[in-house]
């Protein structure tokens, strides 16, 4: 190359006198773009524990466990960054729009995975007769607020509200013995409520 | 749909079934024994572009679709053949279409379809010591690796 071309020379000189193009990452902090899809984080206040994020996750990076802790049913949702694709489906499909949010955190290296996991715990409402899981407490209340007045045609919601206002104590709410018609307004799963309805009718006949 | 008329004229009796999804996607069913002549006509005489062949497991039979592209009109013609469940086999097209030999090797090892006249049926994607008679793309193999057959 005997005669270097002017335009390349110009580019070379501008490159020579400009700052390095790459960012100085470990020494200067990096701010990702506004829409950057970083590590998803649960919001403890707004997550209702419905499990939509668990269902839509393409990589099964969200774990949902229903378990008994100290005699109480709890639902735990755990996000594992090691499996995560950062696709943002959990945020898009969240029923409250706010329960899980992608943060701007891009650096998820860890020594212990527990340090980076995002975890949220919820109380579960279980059938007072058979112990079947109905849903998380927050989810039921969220549905109630969302539905407004029509929600009062739903026995579980009425009884849950009655409990909240102290009209029914926990002891009174328990279903003792076989289900009867009177148990219809207690917190029972749809299956037990059907049983109560049918068996009671039989008895009357 | 001129291409369909030409195909009907050229392939004649060999076409057993025609499925027109829309004007750009046409599926023709032919007998497994006729595939070599049909491929010759479509690939050489009608000057279609070879795209790929897809093999599928239909539980009761095997199926191969040979996809050809007519790029001037944007149409994909798929020649469909059905193969028997027991010992599936078909003529290799590698002397008609040189590029097809890799996908035939792939179907041979993943689905267990035998290609008569193929110059070198050896493992292509799977490792060389893959257990014989284990065909991972068959429906009897679940995604976790369990074999229900």
């Amino acid at each position, binding site marked *: *190359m005997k005669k270097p*071309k002017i*335009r*390349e020379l110009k*580019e*070379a000189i501008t*490159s020579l006198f400009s700052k390095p*193009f*790459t960012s100085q990452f470990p020494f200067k902090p990096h701010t*990702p*773009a*506004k*829409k*950057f*899809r970083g590590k998803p984080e649960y919001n403890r206040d707004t997550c209702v524990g419905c499990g939509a994020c668990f269902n*839509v996750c*393409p*990589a099964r990076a969200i774990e949902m466990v229903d378990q008994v802790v100290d005699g109480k049913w709890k639902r735990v949702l755990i996000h594992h960054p090691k499996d995560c*694709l*950062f*696709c*943002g*489906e959990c945020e*898009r499909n969240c029923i409250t729009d706010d329960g899980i949010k*992608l943060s701007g955190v891009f650096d998820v290296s860890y020594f212990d995975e527990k340090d980076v996991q995002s975890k949220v715990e919820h109380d579960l409402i279980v059938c007072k007769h058979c112990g079947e899981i109905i849903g998380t407490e927050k989810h039921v209340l969220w549905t109630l607020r969302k539905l407004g007045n029509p929600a009062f045609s739903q026995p579980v919601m009425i009884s849950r509200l009655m409990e909240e206002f102290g009209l029914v104590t926990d002891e009174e709410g328990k279903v003792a013995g076989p289900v009867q018609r009177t148990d219809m307004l207690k917190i029972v799963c749809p299956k037990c409520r059907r049983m109560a309805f049918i068996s009671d009718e039989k008895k009357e006949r | 749909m001129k291409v369909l008329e030409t195909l009907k004229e050229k392939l004649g009796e060999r076409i057993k079934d025609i499925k027109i*999804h*829309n004007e750009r*996607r046409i*599926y023709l069913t032919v007998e497994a024994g006729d595939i070599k002549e049909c491929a010759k006509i479509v690939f050489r005489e009608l000057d279609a*572009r*070879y*795209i*790929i062949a*897809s093999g*599928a*497991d239909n539980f009761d039979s095997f199926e191969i*679709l040979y*996809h050809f*592209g007519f*790029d*001037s*009109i*944007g*149409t*994909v013609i*798929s020649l469909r053949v059905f193969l028997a469940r027991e010992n599936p086999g078909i003529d290799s097209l590698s002397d008609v*279409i*040189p*590029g097809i030999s*890799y*996908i035939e090797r792939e179907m041979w090892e993943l689905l267990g379809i035998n290609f008569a006249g193929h110059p070198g049926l050896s*493992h*292509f*994607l*799977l*490792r060389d010591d893959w257990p014989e008679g284990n065909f*991972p*793309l068959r429906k009897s*193999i679940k*995604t976790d690796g369990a074999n229900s057959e």
Partner: protein
Amino acid sequence: MNDKKKVIVPIGPYHPLLEEPEFFALYCDGEKVVDVEWQAGYNHRAIEKLSEGKHWDQVTFLVERICGICSTSHPFAYCNSVEDLLDITVPEKARYIRCIIGEMERIHSHLLWVGLAGHFLGYNTVFMWAWKYRESILEMFEMITGNRNHYAMFKIGGVRRNIEDEDIPALRKVLKDIRAKLEMLTHAVLDDPVLGARLKGVGVLTKGHIKDFGAVGPVARASGVDIDIRRDDPYAAYPAVEWKVIKTENGDVFDKAVVRLLECMESVRIIEQSLDAIEGSKGDIENQVREMPVGEGIGRHEAPRGECFHYVRSDGSNSPVRHKIRAPSYTNIPTFKASCVGQMIADVAIILAGVDPCYCCTERVAVYDADKKNKKLFGFSRLVEMSREKTERMRKQV
């Protein structure tokens, strides 16, 4: 062929300029390559099988991870195939957004290729500059989609995210800059005497080879085969914007570089027109899909490396029963059998690179001398070095 007289140069399995670890055995007679053999599957991830266990919507994320460079091309083709199955159309705005994402990806993929081709020839300045220009495109991706590489934009029936009006000015500015840089780079490549001497007539593919192996994309277009799925089988907003298919006649590595660089300029034109179309429009970005009928569909997309082909079959359930994927490299790679034969071993690196298989996993090449029974092992860097030495020799001659 008498193997005893030949030197076998195995390339791979972990490396050779390919998206995945693959293996090539070059049979050499002296400096000349007489035959090539290809062995794949070292990174077989069973995506087709996995796809049978995922929901229709989740498959878009699975196929996005087939390739790390052209990550939109597979979801694009997959969405086309499912939309063909469903017989639905995509809202106009979503069609333009799809075009913008697809073409931005083409620019960054081609720039990556130009940079690496320069690197293999010993033109490290080209490598640095091309990757610097590419960086601004990746930053735009982060700004409009939320990630530099896996955009997660595609959805059956539309796109997942909108391109907001406030992002458009920044995108236009980047396009304006990159157009000037691309022009500079294209001219620099076109009238460089050393590059011309080094690449012209190397790895020639004729029209006959292209037909036999079914090669697609820039590889076919450099040999004068006039195919481009964007024009031949129109989808998204490609019929609505003005652009032309780039085609050259010689089929050597130089022409492949020219096709890629000129295609980038066309991509800039497509994006600019698409931005004009979506700016200020308030249209829908997706059509909801409620039910999946029984049937089959074929979808194609012109990825940076050529036609990407997806075939899906549904039995009406929640996941596909068969999902066949053909990446463009699947038919482009066997052309090595035609292009490498009769070439010098120093040219092999650039011929392998000329097809633009994604370059990752650069590992090692071992040279076996079957005749003398001695075995020399050296890294892939040696092959690149040989390529650079040849460029240096030619530079002195020019």
